[in-house]
């Protein structure tokens, strides 16, 4: 691993200045992903700007009834927050479905959003990867794609997909379903970005996971007040029952009145370069009867444009019926629950 300088600035502003001024500098929060990358050679920063003590570790009530989650809030603390458990249970479930107890104690809210894909080829510097080295090619698209995208990895004019990686976060999936907003501080001031627009699709530049600019720091994630979220859930399907990334996951919230779905929020994990807000599925669900046919129609609407990969090493076509089944079972259970 390449030697680096580790600095601990006195304030978030100093940390932002340090990273903004040096393209070779990166922020270090919980380190659960970045430290792996340092060892693997996936990341070779010259300077680590340590955020310990510089970002908020509080979950605060917002005047509008929502919550502001400090970027430094640990995943385990957020999962245990009584307001999250009561008003956004799907978020608590997603957090607890991620990683292991030890990792959740270490990982932060901001860092969770900024973790990078676990694509096996991205993490192996001996194989080509457009995300790691732009223009190098992609070993994954014809390789082992069990954990790779079936949505949003469009082909270019030449029929090539530049990147088929998925975003690995569980936490971000219900957050995107709940219209969370990311608060940023940067060298040019503060801004707020809806989480649904925070992560990018790969397009022809998969090296950029998000819309963050150099030196911009996630300071908080805001959850708007959202009554339907009180009846939300997170369903994660993985190759073993715990401590594994999602093959597919579903965050969903529905409101049902007299057998009719009056509101619905749906997002998918494990299937795209970003946590995938299933707006087409939501459109099908809203106003429709809470029936098996509706759930399937919702899944079909969202999966109409799915582009699974068929490769010699192991494709991911199974993720289409898997996601359909997962969404169906999730909606069915949610609708059957009494509020």
């Amino acid at each position: 691993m390449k030697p680096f300088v580790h600095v601990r600035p006195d304030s978030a502003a100093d940390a932002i200045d340090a990273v903004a001024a040096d393209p070779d500098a990166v922020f270090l929060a919980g380190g659960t992903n970045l430290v792996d990358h340092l060892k693997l050679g996936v990341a070779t920063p010259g300077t680590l700007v340590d955020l310990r003590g510089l970002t908020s570790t509080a979950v605060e009530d917002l005047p509008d009834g929502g919550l502001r989650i400090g970027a430094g809030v640990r995943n385990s603390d957020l999962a245990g927050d009584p307001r999250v458990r009561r008003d956004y249970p799907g978020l608590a479930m997603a957090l607890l479905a991620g990683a292991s107890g030890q990792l959740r104690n270490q990982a932060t809210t901001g860092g969770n959003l900024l973790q990078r894909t676990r694509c096996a080829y991205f993490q192996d510097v001996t194989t080509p990867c457009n995300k790691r080295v732009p223009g190098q090619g992609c070993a994954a698209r014809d390789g082992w794609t069990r954990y790779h995208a079936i949505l949003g990895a469009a082909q270019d004019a030449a029929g090539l997909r530049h990147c088929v990686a998925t975003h690995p976060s569980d936490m971000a999936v219900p957050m995107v379903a709940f219209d969370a907003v990311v608060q940023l501080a940067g060298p040019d001031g503060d801004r707020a970005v809806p989480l649904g627009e925070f992560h990018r699709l790969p397009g022809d530049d998969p090296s950029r996971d998000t819309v963050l600019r150099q030196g911009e720091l996630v300071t908080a994630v805001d959850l708007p007040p959202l009554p339907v979220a009180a009846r939300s859930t997170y369903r994660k399907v993985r190759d073993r029952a715990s401590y594994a990334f999602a093959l597919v996951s579903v965050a969903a919230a529905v409101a049902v009145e007299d057998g009719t779905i009056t509101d619905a929020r749906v997002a998918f994990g494990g299937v795209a370069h970003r946590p995938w807000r299933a707006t087409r599925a939501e459109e099908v669900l809203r106003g429709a009867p809470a029936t098996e046919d509706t759930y399937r129609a919702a899944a079909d609407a969202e999966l109409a444009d799915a582009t699974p990969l068929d490769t010699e090493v192991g494709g991911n076509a199974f993720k289409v019926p898997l996601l359909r089944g997962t969404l169906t079972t999730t909606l069915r259970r949610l609708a059957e629950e009494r509020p």
Partner: protein
Amino acid sequence: MTTTDLVPARAMGTPRRRTEGPAKVTGTARYAAEYAVARPLHLHPILATVPRGRVTAIHTTAAEALDGVVAVLTTRDAEALADTADREFAVLQDDEIGFRGQYVAAVLADTSETARHGADLVRVTYDEDPFRARLDPDSGELYAPDSVNPAFATDSVIGDVSSALRDAPVTVDATYRTAMTHNNPMEPHASIVVWEPAGTGGRFTIFDSTQGVSATRRNVATVFGLDPGDVDVISPHVGGGFGSKGNMHANVVLACLAARRVPGRPVTYALTRQQMFSLVGYRTPTVQHVRLGASPDGRLTGLVHDVVEQTSRIKEFAEQTATYSRSVYAAPHRRTTHRLDPLDVPVPSWMRAPGECPGSFAAEVAMDELATACGLDPVELRIRNEPDADPESGKPFSSRHLVECLRRGVERFGWSRRDPTPRARLVDGWWTGTGVAAAAYPANRAPGSGATVRFHAPAAGGEEHWDVEIAAADIGTGARTVLGQIAADALDVDVDTVEVTVGDTAVPAATVAGGSSGTTNWGTAVVDAAQRFREKFGADPSDGDEADGTTPETDAAEHYAMSAFGAHFVEVAVHADTGEIRVPRMLGVFAAGRILNPTTARSQLLGGMTMGLSMALHEDSVMDPRSGHVVNHDLANYHIASCADVGEIDVEWIDEVDPHVNPMGSKGIGEIGIVGAAAAVANAAHHATGVRVRSVPITVDAFLG
């Protein structure tokens, strides 16, 4: 005929906690890379990034210029080894690349971080040759090895199986596949090596994580042309091996080469998890074609088990996959074969129950299919095919209680309430079902172990105590504890007065912990030493008296077929919408001779079953045939069963004392737990869903319509 005189069991058979347990849980037990040595250097290797070809250049200047880098070893400047007959040990000897991940250079530096950075700076170029890295059952290169591991006949033919199958009223004809898997012990392979030159020779001191210090001593001596006495190997605690630390691997040679470059300075080399996927062995993937012929009442008339598996081109390893089918069920006409596909891949080796583990998957799922075809209960089918004597050799079994295991399991598991109809139980969205499989694993025994027993008279006010010394390996099994129990009974003394030393070449040499033979071999030597001690010194020895023992010759194997047996019962639930698989219950009932220590035995059997569960549902080394490497080479992507994958695991055993295997009445238990476990899961999954899955791991994809 021989009947071993059995040692009366007093301490043997009673539960005892691991002697070294407190040291392990308090973190004071030292593992190989943890020894405090003066001024250690750290090694980080550079691995070939092509699967076949040759090195054309190695650029080391940048690494050598790095502050803290002491040396860079390459194929261009490594010393010539004395003996490279074993190609796995021919480390840095030439520019030829036999598999991706092979060592081509190594950096020695004063910290592990600097060594790693230095390794990143070494640039290697290659001429690449065409290669093949994925098992192809239709490969034109398939060949029959001279024998299969360790020395079994490659093929076996009895009777006229073709006619038997042609004439059989009921047949099963199916192909089964098991995945490539990696042992992945928790502690990586690791060594600290010091080379002290003396005169024209010198001396190695090696702290190593190994299943056999004596074998490592022999191998290092051979490779470097030394007297075995000039190689000390120390390995008191080992964080798992599962066979991967049974045969020495290239990592020890590399660490020794590096140590000789810096005489007097310790060299530390602990493999990264990723390196373990190309350098320390693995289980071959298998393609197994099984054909069964039976009468309508389920009695086998013909049995064929044809296996295709891989070996590396540079060194042959032939897993004895079909040998399971040679000894378990009666059938007058039978055939087993093994064919190897030579590939440009890392060298396969031992992984828990080599042969029996993958072989039993195919054989025991095929039996389940036969039960369905005959409309018979799968337990009853197995009982109907119980042989009177070993089906191939005709020898009587030294003891065999497979039927008792099955019957006990039926009772304990509630099997008699089972409705045989597949896909008939949907419980809260989950298809549920149950399955059974048998298990067998040979009671191996090998010569080559010695032991010393020494008496210490009580000091004033103290107690007498006994030293028992043998270079056995305790890889987490409880060997040290069990050997103390054996010694106590053989000496007829209180077990608490016995202190056992293992894992050090300073004490009498012993066989490797492998083939479930450790306790048999080492225990026999300990009993021999104890008996000689009593013969020599009687009941009233003096302080310091000692006696040596060995493993006496025995011809029991000429007269008896000796194996442990077992039966697995498993409940499986498969989610109707997602295909997720959970295992609410596993039960293993075993007949494995006298169980010497119920506490540690339960853990070993449970561990074997858990590894079988892991094989059934998770473990899969994904070989990318374009690059020739295992792409999921870390524990995030190579899944091993977690606690949440299973509900209850029950372990039970039949009272059995075998008089022929060894003087303790025991058989090995390290491997029998994994044999058959995956088949039971697959059979239960079929009962649950009606979907017959003939390959492992069984993942959600198998059940998605």
